[in-house]
């Protein structure tokens, strides 16, 4: 488990170094994601400890957004000033991007074997 976490951190660290060294607009963790992904393709069968560690980190992915979200208390003045464009963009653009992307992909993705049967349509 520790080795798996170390590997993930090493990928992130290399990502940060590459981002900094070449002055890339892509943040370190994203390059780290790419590095780990390449590693998985090369290795073909990822070790169980690594997939377990990754799954554990991702189970409560949404928890990790809480500290940044609480930052809303530092932005109240700006939010008050620009509340209309912010609210409109948040709701309208998000839903527009989602529905258009879903429509496009439901047309373009190769025919599914069975995609309607599982889960509830909520």
């Amino acid at each position, binding site marked *: 488990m520790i080795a798996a*976490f170390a590997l993930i*951190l090493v*990928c992130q660290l290399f990502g940060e170094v590459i981002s900094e060294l070449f002055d890339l607009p*892509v*943040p*370190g*963790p*994203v390059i*780290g*994601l790419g590095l780990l*992904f390449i590693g*998985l*393709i090369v290795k073909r069968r*990822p070790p169980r400890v690594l997939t377990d*560690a990754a799954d554990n*980190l*991702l189970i*409560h*992915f*949404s*928890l*990790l*957004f*809480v*500290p*940044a979200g*609480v930052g*809303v*208390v*530092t*932005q109240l003045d*700006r*939010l008050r000033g620009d509340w209309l*464009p*912010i609210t*409109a*963009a*948040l*709701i309208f*653009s*998000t*839903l527009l*991007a*989602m*529905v258009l*992307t879903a*429509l*496009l*992909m*439901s047309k*373009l*993705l*190769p025919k*599914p074997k069975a*995609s*309607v049967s*599982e*889960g*509830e349509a*909520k």
Partner: protein
Amino acid sequence: MGETDITQLWVYLSTKPLTGLTITLVAYSIGFWLYQKTDRNPVCNPVVIAIALIALLLESTGTPYATYFEGAQFVHFLLGPATVALAVPLFRQMETLKRALPVIIFGVLFGSLVASVSTVVLAWVLGASPETLASLAPKSVTTPVAMGIADEIGGVPALTAVCVIATGIVGATLGPMVMNLARLKDWRARGFAMGVAAHGIGTARAFQVNETAGAFSGLAMGLNTLATALTLPFLWHWFFG
């Protein structure tokens, strides 16, 4: 214990990193419990509940955000490794990736452009300030990346974090209803769109509803992070100089 004792105790405790960390986990647990209790009603999003509870606590006790963050940074830090860890669910979709790579890349670029262009145009028409525009533009990518992009194009990273999370919440709560209205039934397309428009919060939601939707959401989110991080800064500098 009198009122002043409690105040003094809070003043003492609030400076300890342990407090900020504990509050974060407790607030999220309360949010998650409520979410379970309401039969996973998307409106009872654990992230919204946690943020609201903590914000109320900080405002009512006059505790600065920086003090809270001393403890909360331990949770925040994990966003980096968790972003790296997305390579694993992405790898699990390798078969689909191989079969439909051009379609997937096209879909991600399309969704990324629609999300950022419609955001900037709409907010600009409604009179947002330049800093707000730049802070809103990357709102559909996951927080650490969006904050990096905002910084790059002249936005306010803290405002971006708030907008990104609000975007995820809007997508996770209202998205499924709107996709139902549009009669979208393909779980792969629904999940994919969720990941493109509503990043990690949407992906967390998609996983809870349907495994296939979750996997496609994670795939789209990871690729969208790359697509937006690679295209948005260049587009921005090109348009706004």
